C-alpha cells in the first residue's frame, strides 16, 4: 500500500524536531526542587525546554501549555484535575507528554473536558501515560502529525450520556498515529472524525459502553492489528472512503443491537485478514460501495454478515464462514454484490470434478433471516418449530425461496490465509 508512506514522513519529521530542540534547557519540578509546580516551570521555560516532573501529586487546576516543551514524568507523577478542571491543555507545536498519571478531569454538559487536550497543534507526542477517571481522556482537535502511543486509559465506567466521553478522541486531523494503547470504560474507545491519512495500530479497546472504535468522515486511514472486544455495540466505520482494515480481531460484541463492525456508507475500502468471533453480527453493511471483504474468518456469530441491498458492487470473497447461526442476511430478494469463492461450513454440496469448488451453488440467505431483516418483530420466532419446518422446505426445494443470493463457487476447503 503506497498510502502507508506518509507514516515514514511523519516519523522523520518528528525526529527532526526532536534533534533541533533537544540541546536546550532542562527544568526539574518536584516538591523539594526550585520549581514546585509545573505552572511555575512553564513560566520560565523557553521553547524546546524539557520539564522533568518528579513523582508526587500535582493539583494545579488547568495547566496550559503554549510553548514547545517536553513534559516528562519521572516515577509517574500524578496530575489531578480534582473533578473540576481540564488537566492538561496544549496549544503549541512539538509538545511531548510522557510518563504521567492524569486523573479526575472535570465534567461538563457543554464542553468536552479532557485529561489531555491538544488543540491547533502539530507534531505532538503523547506516550506512556496512564489516564484514569477522566471525562474525555486524550482529546486532539485540529492537529497534524501527532502520535498517541502506549497509553493506558481507564475511563470512569459510568454509563450515561453525559458522564463519559471518548478515550482517544481525534477531530480534524491529518497524519496521526494511535498505537499500542489500552482503552476501557469510556463512551467510544477511539473516536475519529474528519481525520485523514492516519494509522490506528496495535490498540486494545474493550469494555467501552458504545463503540470500541468510532470512525466518521475519515478518509484514507488504516487500522490494523487492533483488538476490539466486549464493547457495547462494536466498531462503527461510517461515511468514509479508502479505509484499510486489516488483521484486527472483533470479538464478543454480543447483545441485541450489537455488531462486530458496522460499515455505514463506506466506499472503496478493504477489509482483510480480520477475525470476527462471537458477535451478534460480524459485519453489518449499509450503503457501502466498491469495498472488498476478503480472507476474513467469521466464527460463531449470530449473523456472519448482514448486507443490506443498498450496498452495491462490493466483493465478498475467500472468507471462511464457520458455524454462524446465519451466514448472511439481506433485506431484498436480490443483492447487487459479488459473493463468490468463500468457504461456508454449512455448505452440503459435493465436488465431483475435484477442483476444490462445490458443484452446486450455496445459498447463504435463509428465508427466515430475510423476513426477519425486513420485519424485525418476527425474531420472536427464532428456533420455532415452524421456522425449522421452513428451513427444511428450503433445503429440499430451494426453488420456492425468492431470495436469489448465491455463492456460485463455494469452496470445499477452508481458506488458509496468513497475516
Amino acid at each position, binding site marked *: 500500500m503506497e498510502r502507508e508512506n506518509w507514516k515514514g514522513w511523519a516519523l522523520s519529521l518528528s525526529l527532526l524536531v526532536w534533534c533541533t530542540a533537544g540541546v536546550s534547557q532542562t527544568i526539574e519540578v518536584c516538591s523539594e526542587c526550585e520549581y514546585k509546580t509545573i505552572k511555575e516551570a512553564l513560566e520560565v521555560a523557553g521553547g524546546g525546554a524539557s520539564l522533568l516532573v518528579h513523582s508526587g501529586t500535582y493539583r494545579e487546576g488547568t495547566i496550559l501549555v503554549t510553548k514547545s516543551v517536553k513534559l516528562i514524568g519521572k516515577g509517574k507523577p500524578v496530575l489531578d484535575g480534582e473533578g473540576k478542571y481540564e488537566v492538561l491543555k496544549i496549544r503549541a507545536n512539538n509538545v511531548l507528554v510522557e510518563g504521567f498519571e492524569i486523573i479526575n478531569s472535570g465534567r461538563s454538559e457543554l464542553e468536552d473536558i479532557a485529561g489531555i487536550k491538544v488543540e491547533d497543534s502539530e507534531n505532538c507526542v503523547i506516550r506512556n501515560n496512564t489516564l484514569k477517571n477522566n471525562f474525555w481522556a486524550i482529546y486532539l482537535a485540529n492537529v497534524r502529525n501527532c502520535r498517541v502511543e502506549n497509553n493506558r486509559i481507564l475511563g470512569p465506567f459510568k454509563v450515561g450520556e453525559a458522564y463519559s466521553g471518548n478515550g482517544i478522541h481525534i477531530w480534524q486531523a491529518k497524519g496521526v498515529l494511535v498505537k499500542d494503547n489500552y482503552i476501557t470504560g469510556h463512551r467510544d474507545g477511539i473516536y475519529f472524525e474528519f481525520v485523514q491519512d492516519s494509522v490506528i495500530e496495535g490498540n486494545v479497546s474493550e469494555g467501552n459502553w458504545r463503540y470500541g472504535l468510532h470512525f466518521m468522515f475519515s478518509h484514507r486511514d488504516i487500522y490494523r492489528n487492533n483488538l476490539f472486544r466486549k464493547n457495547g455495540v462494536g466498531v462503527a466505520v461510517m461515511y468514509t472512503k479508502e479505509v484499510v482494515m486489516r488483521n484486527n480481531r472483533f470479538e464478543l460484541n454480543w447483545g*441485541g443491537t450489537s455488531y462486530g463492525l458496522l460499515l455505514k456508507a463506506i466506499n472503496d475500502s478493504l477489509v482483510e485478514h480480520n477475525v470476527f468471533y462471537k458477535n*451478534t453480527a460480524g459485519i453489518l453493511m449499509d450503503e457501502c460501495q466498491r469495498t472488498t471483504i476478503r480472507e476474513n474468518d467469521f466464527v460463531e456469530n*449470530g449473523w456472519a454478515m448482514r448486507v443490506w441491498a443498498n450496498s452495491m458492487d462490493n466483493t465478498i470473497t475467500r472468507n471462511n464462514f464457520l458455524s454462524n447461526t446465519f451466514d448472511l442476511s439481506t433485506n431484498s430478494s436480490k443483492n447487487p454484490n459479488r459473493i463468490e469463492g468463500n468457504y461456508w461450513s454449512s455448505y452440503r454440496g459435493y465436488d465431483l470434478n475435484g477442483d476444490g469448488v462445490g458443484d452446486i451453488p450455496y445459498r447463504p440467505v435463509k428465508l427466515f433471516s430475510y423476513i*426477519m431483516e425486513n420485519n424485525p418483530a418476527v425474531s*420472536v420466532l427464532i428456533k420455532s*418449530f*415452524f421456522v*425449522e*419446518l421452513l428451513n427444511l422446505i428450503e433445503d429440499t426445494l430451494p426453488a420456492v425461496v425468492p431470495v436469489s443470493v448465491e455463492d456460485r463457487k463455494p469452496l470445499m476447503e477452508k481458506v488458509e490465509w496468513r497475516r
Partner: protein
Amino acid sequence: MPEFLKLLRADLRNLKGIKWLWAYLLSLAGMSFLILYLSNDTGKVILSLLNITLLMVPLVSSFFCITYFYDSKSFMEFLLSQPVSRAQVFWSKLASLWLFMSFLYAGGVLIPLIKEVLNPTLWVLLISGVLLSMVFISLAVLVGTVFDDRVKGVSFLLGLWLYLTVLHDGVILAVVYLFKDYPLEGVVLALALVNPVDLARIAVVINMDVAALMGLSEALFREVLGSLWGLSLAFAFMVLWFALPAFLASLLFKRKAL
C-alpha cells in the same frame, strides 16, 4: 384432604404400571444421550433438546392423557359411588397425570445431563418442559370433559395441538407480513404470549446466546425479553395456561353427567 391423597396414590400406582409411558422416558433419555454424543457444546445440546421438547411433550402429554381420561371414566363412576366428592376424584386424576408426566419428562432429560445439573439454562428447559407437559395435560382433560364422544375429543385435540405447535407461528408470520407498516412488537409479543409452546421456547431461548438475535431494534423486546422479567412473565403465562383449563374443566366436571 386425605381422600384426595389416597386417590392420587392409587392413580399414580396405576400410571406406574403403564409400560409405554416408560418408553416415553426412555426415548427422551435416548435422544438426549444421542445429542450429547453428537455435540459437546452444552448450549447446542439444550437447543436440540428444546426442539425435541416442543415436539414430543405436547404430543405425548395431550394424546396419552385424553385416552387415559376416557379410559378411566368408568372407574371414576365407580369411585363416585363411594363417599368421595367429585372435586377429589377430578383433582386427584389431574394431579396424578401432572405429577407423573412431569416426572417422566424431567427424568428423560435430566438422566443423561446429570453432569450439567448446575446449569441454569438446563433448569429453564426443565421447568419449561414440565410446565408445557402440565399445560397439555390440562388441555387434554378439558377437551375430554367437554366432549363425551372420544373420536370428537381426540380430533379436536389433534387440531389444537397442530395449531399451537405449528400453525400459530405461521399466523404470527402472516400477521407481521400483512401489517408491516404498523408497530408490531406489542402485537407479536401478545400473540406469542397466548401460545404455551411459544412461551416455553421463548423462556429457554432468552436464556441463551441466540437471544441477542431477537433484540434487534425492538425496544419492547429488549425490555420484556431481555430480563428476568421476561422469564417470569413466560412462566407466569404458562402457569395460567395450565391452571385455567384445569379450573374450567373442574367446573364442568362438577356438573357433568357421567
